């Protein structure tokens, strides 16, 4: 990069920010563990269903809900379907929804918040009132309308969820940017005539990365569980396909009778989230410009 004009705390050494960050990330054991775990999880939901002897829809109604055993590692659900296979398939949906919808909300939220905070004044006020207005639109009604007029598609599901989840992200980023904006290095960048786009993308957002990453890792589980509600309204996954959110929801109703139906999908979700958080924290530390000094 070699941006000599960059303020001191963004680039410290001659090496690039990303290379540096990667080096620091690799040294963080928890982050590496998180990354490995996540990769494993993704591989498992992609490849796993091919290896499993059961399909997600094959029923054994005579068997019904059976506890974990050698033939059904995670037990079966109330229709006698192999829970392990259903979790693997459900993982495809959940991970996809979790990442895609979060990506949508992240992109919109971060850019919107940063622009509003950077613009200040009337533009900021108007943009944030738009956020306030969108907060009040009832999600249930919006989902029902979308389902009926746009049909049922998984892409629509990402959009719908992403479209509501970006609001808080925008508020958080704006809050950060509003105070960063008054700092000397931004003023310096403005004086030096850097384009606004460059200031926002290269200076403001990187310095707000901490809260962005934390909130992103919080958004992913929220989105995965929200998907269950959206599916309940008929928009998300269609039976007999399932997702972790839906499996957890079903499992919650029978937690006393068939605890495995709640526990295993919950473990899958929790493992993913723990890994994500380790990775997120590691990323945040690695990308934090100030950490470079240590």
């Amino acid at each position: 990069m070699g941006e000599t004009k960059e303020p001191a705390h963004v680039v410290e050494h001659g090496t690039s920010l990303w290379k540096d960050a990667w080096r620091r990330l690799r040294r963080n054991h928890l982050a590496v563990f998180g990354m490995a775990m996540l990769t494993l999880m993704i591989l498992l939901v992609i490849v796993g269903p091919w290896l499993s002897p059961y399909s997600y829809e094959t029923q054994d109604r005579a068997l019904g809900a059976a506890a974990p055993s050698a033939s059904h590692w995670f037990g079966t659900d109330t229709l006698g379907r192999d829970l392990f296979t259903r979790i693997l398939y459900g993982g495809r949906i959940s991970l996809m929804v979790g990442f895609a919808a979060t990506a949508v909300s992240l992109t919109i939220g971060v850019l919107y918040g940063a622009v509003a905070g950077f613009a200040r004044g009337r533009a900021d006020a108007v943009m944030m009132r738009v956020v306030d207005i969108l907060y009040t639109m009832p999600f249930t009604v919006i989902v029902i309308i979308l389902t009926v007029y746009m049909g049922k598609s998984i892409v629509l599901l990402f959009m719908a969820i992403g479209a509501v989840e970006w609001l808080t992200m925008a508020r958080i980023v704006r809050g950060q940017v509003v105070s960063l904006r008054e700092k000397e290095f931004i003023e310096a960048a403005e004086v030096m005539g850097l384009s606004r786009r460059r200031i926002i993308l290269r200076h403001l957002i990187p310095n707000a990365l901490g809260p962005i990453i934390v909130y992103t890792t919080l958004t992913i589980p929220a989105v995965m569980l929200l998907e269950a509600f959206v599916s309940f309204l008929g928009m998300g996954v269609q039976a007999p396909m399932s997702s972790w959110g839906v499996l957890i929801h079903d499992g919650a109703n029978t937690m006393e009778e068939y605890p495995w139906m709640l526990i295993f999908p919950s473990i899958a979700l929790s493992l993913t989230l723990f890994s994500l958080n380790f990775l997120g924290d590691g990323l945040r530390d690695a990308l934090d410009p100030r950490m470079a000094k240590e």
Partner: protein
Amino acid sequence: MTKFILRRLLSFIPVFFIIVTMLFFLIRIAPGGPFQGGERAVPPEVLEKLRETYNLNAPLYRQYVDYLVDLAQGDLGPSMYQPSRTVTEWVQLRFPVSLELGFYALLVAMTLGFLAGITAALRPNTITDYVPMSFAMVGICIPNFVLGPVLVLIFALKLGWLPVAGWADPLDKVLPSLTLGTAYAAYVARLARGGMFEVLAQDFIRTARAKGLSETRVILRHALRGGVQPVIAFLGPAAAGLLTGSFVVEQIFQVPGLGKQFVDAAFNRDYTMLMGAVLVYAVLILCFNLVVDVIQAWLDPRVRYG
């Protein structure tokens, strides 16, 4: 600052108007209406009369104007689904309950969240970081429709310490408040840790420490100011949501709050009730986001408001 607040309050009027307008048309786009019969068909003459009674046969713009005129006089109309009370009466009945539950939950969320988050940030990557943060993760992973029943099974059914459901005795309020507050506590904890962690690494904190200021003073006077920014930004909308009720928690614990009213109204297409409930929420969102902005300005005096 006074000028900023005044100007912002003034901006509520057009914002509120836009919300009413969008909402009015949005809920009428949703398929189905309040009167369409159910599992049993209802005679068409009756349905026609019902629509006429509730002014649903007039042209849409006419309905809209009529609604605005009524609203301007503070009249939200009768509930279409539960006809023996007006929307205002329903809100008066339900909103205080949600406010109370939301307040306790917020208390739980902030106390637990800040404690855990700050403790964790002080000694990052040690046991006092991992333990509270793991709990926070657990809080995020367990949705309240799982946490609620689990708490009931332990504290109400197994131990017999607390009631299973209801909203009459003070003891009734413990489990719903904990259930509702926990998820938010986890959010607060994670955001607070992140924020504090960054601030504590900054030069001015090092300077303050170098000057020999006590650690408590450093944290309370200097670090908190910058560190809680993201939490505060999150708390605005979160508080508005908490105080207007949670459908899931209200349903699990049989709490007569506004959250259930809100969701039921959406499912029943109870237009008047849904409008009423959303307007309450809208007022709260606007107010809380204003409060948040004021707090942020106060925490960081450099921020200019134009």
